[in-house]
């Protein structure tokens, strides 16, 4: 109950942020069916002229577009689809409706906080107007630099994808009738903490807090298993590593107490719950079923503020969290990835 009140409060607060921003937010988001999601997508398409429409919908067989995502700014890795900065207010509202339909309320909130963080990065660190070394302002960051595209025609029954992303965000939602996955999805943040209208925002703050809570719950022997002796400098399964699964390591779920297993699942839910409620519920049930075979791995400092790498890996999910020292403070620049072994892009539902 308290969680719901906090969530609603956060959504109401966020709605005021984005009214004047790229994508508005209201608090009416709820679990949506594929039919409702495809309906929102079709409605968005109806707001576009022929040229724009042709630029946003790719064939479902377009493997190049399916895999065209990155943690990098769009200046360096071009995204397909339509740039938010090129859309009208009405069309942006259409994008908002698609995202609110396709993501959970907390998933939508996380995505928007990452986007807003990039706007902060643009204004504060990288060439905001008036900076002596970049007086014109750079266009590589900020909420105009996010793209939306569909791979396949929106459909309640046939497989298709929604892609929304830019710097530090790549949401790849595959819908195939009753099935939904966000694998692979990249979230990131820089700055990892920022102030917005008097409030402190941490787009990936829960991930850090929950990972440290789990680490701190481990006894000495468990820590010896969980903590690697080597440095992890980046994501192992970041962009370009589709379909790969690495050897699990660290501490196995079967060596955790019931309470620690719950904490591990709760940590994973920070990624899983980006999906619409029904899909997330199924995925969490799946994770719970395999929790004994799910591993937790840690590399780096064991004290906050959190510039340590960690990984959650089970038969049906791989999650990595990798602080980046680009920018100086690793706790302020984060990359993460969510994958499903054998089911990136929902391939098990549509490949033959």
């Amino acid at each position, binding site marked *: 109950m308290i969680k719901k009140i906090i969530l609603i409060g956060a959504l109401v607060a966020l709605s005021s942020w984005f009214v004047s921003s790229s994508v508005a937010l209201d608090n009416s988001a709820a679990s949506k069916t594929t039919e409702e999601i495809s309906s929102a997508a079709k409605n968005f398409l109806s707001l576009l002229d022929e040229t724009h429409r042709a630029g946003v919908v790719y064939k479902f067989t377009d493997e190049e577009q399916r895999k065209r995502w990155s943690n990098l700014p769009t*200046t360096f890795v071009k995204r397909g689809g339509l740039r938010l900065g090129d859309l009208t207010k009405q069309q942006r509202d259409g994008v908002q409706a698609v995202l609110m339909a396709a993501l959970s309320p907390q998933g939508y909130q996380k995505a928007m906080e990452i986007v807003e963080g990039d706007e902060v990065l643009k204004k504060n660190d990288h060439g905001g107007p008036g900076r002596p070394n970049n007086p014109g302002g750079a266009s590589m960051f900020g909420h105009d630099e996010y793209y939306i595209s569909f791979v396949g025609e929106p459909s309640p029954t046939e497989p298709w994808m929604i892609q929304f992303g830019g710097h530090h965000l790549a949401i790849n939602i595959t819908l195939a009738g009753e099935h939904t996955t966000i694998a692979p999805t990249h979230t990131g943040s820089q700055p990892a903490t920022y102030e917005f209208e008097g409030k402190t925002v941490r787009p990936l703050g829960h991930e850090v807090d929950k990972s440290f809570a789990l680490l701190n719950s481990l006894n000495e022997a468990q820590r010896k298993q969980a903590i690697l002796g*080597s440095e992890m400098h980046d994501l192992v399964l970041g962009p370009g590593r589709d379909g790969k699964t*690495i*050897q*699990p390591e660290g501490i196995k779920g079967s060596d955790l107490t019931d309470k620690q297993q719950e904490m591990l699942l709760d940590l994973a839910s920070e990624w899983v719950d980006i999906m619409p409620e029904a899909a997330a519920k199924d995925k969490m049930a799946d994770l719970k079923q395999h929790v004994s075979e799910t591993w937790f791995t840690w590399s780096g400092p064991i004290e906050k503020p959190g510039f340590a790498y960690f990984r959650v890996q089970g038969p049906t999910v791989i999650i990595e969290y990798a602080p980046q*020292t*680009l*920018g100086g403070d690793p706790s302020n620049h984060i990359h993460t990835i969510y994958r499903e072994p054998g089911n990136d892009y929902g391939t098990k539902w549509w490949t033959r």
Partner: protein
Amino acid sequence: MVDAVKSGFRRLLVLLACLALPHGVVAHQLDEYLQATLVSIEPEGIRLQMNLTPGVAVADKVLVLIDRDNNGKISTNEAAAYAALLQHDLAVQLDGRPVDLKLNAFNFPETSELKTGWEMIQMDFSVDHGSLGPGAHRLKLENRHLPAISVYLFNAEQPTSKLIQISKQERNKTQSVGEIEFNYVPLATNSKTVKYLASATGLIFVLAVGIWKAVSSRRST
């Protein structure tokens, strides 16, 4: 010409972005060469898949080893020569014996893209180990390529074949050295069917001996 201007502008943007960072915070990745190796072990062979990303501040140090004629383009020969240079710096051992690598494929971005510090070179090597015998094995990789500017990642890919089972993975602190212990249980020694066949063959043999003895004793009587 337009491309050259665009790529020059892109590089300038990166440098400006770096310069725009608060004083003293520029570190890592800008000045490091990330070499990430994924080791795939399957009954058909062992492969090293390497993603190599030079940061913007060290890209020139890497590029000078690739674009030998400094014409701004990476020819196939130059790419192959760099692959050979890298290969020379990779020491691989299987069960304590040095083994050779064979280059399968490589992919190089444009020099202008490499200079931005965001793009990666990809290399795919296979380990030339002959046929893999059944039982326990240990693979060791030591990456000695450009250690002064590099950081490393070393990971075993989860085998797709159930005939290979990875039992242990070890690395040094920097991950420039990694070792993987694995077991190979070939089909012939793994299959339940084979075990059943062996049992059945034994049974038939015993029965045959029994029948032969019975027939022999009748004849003698």
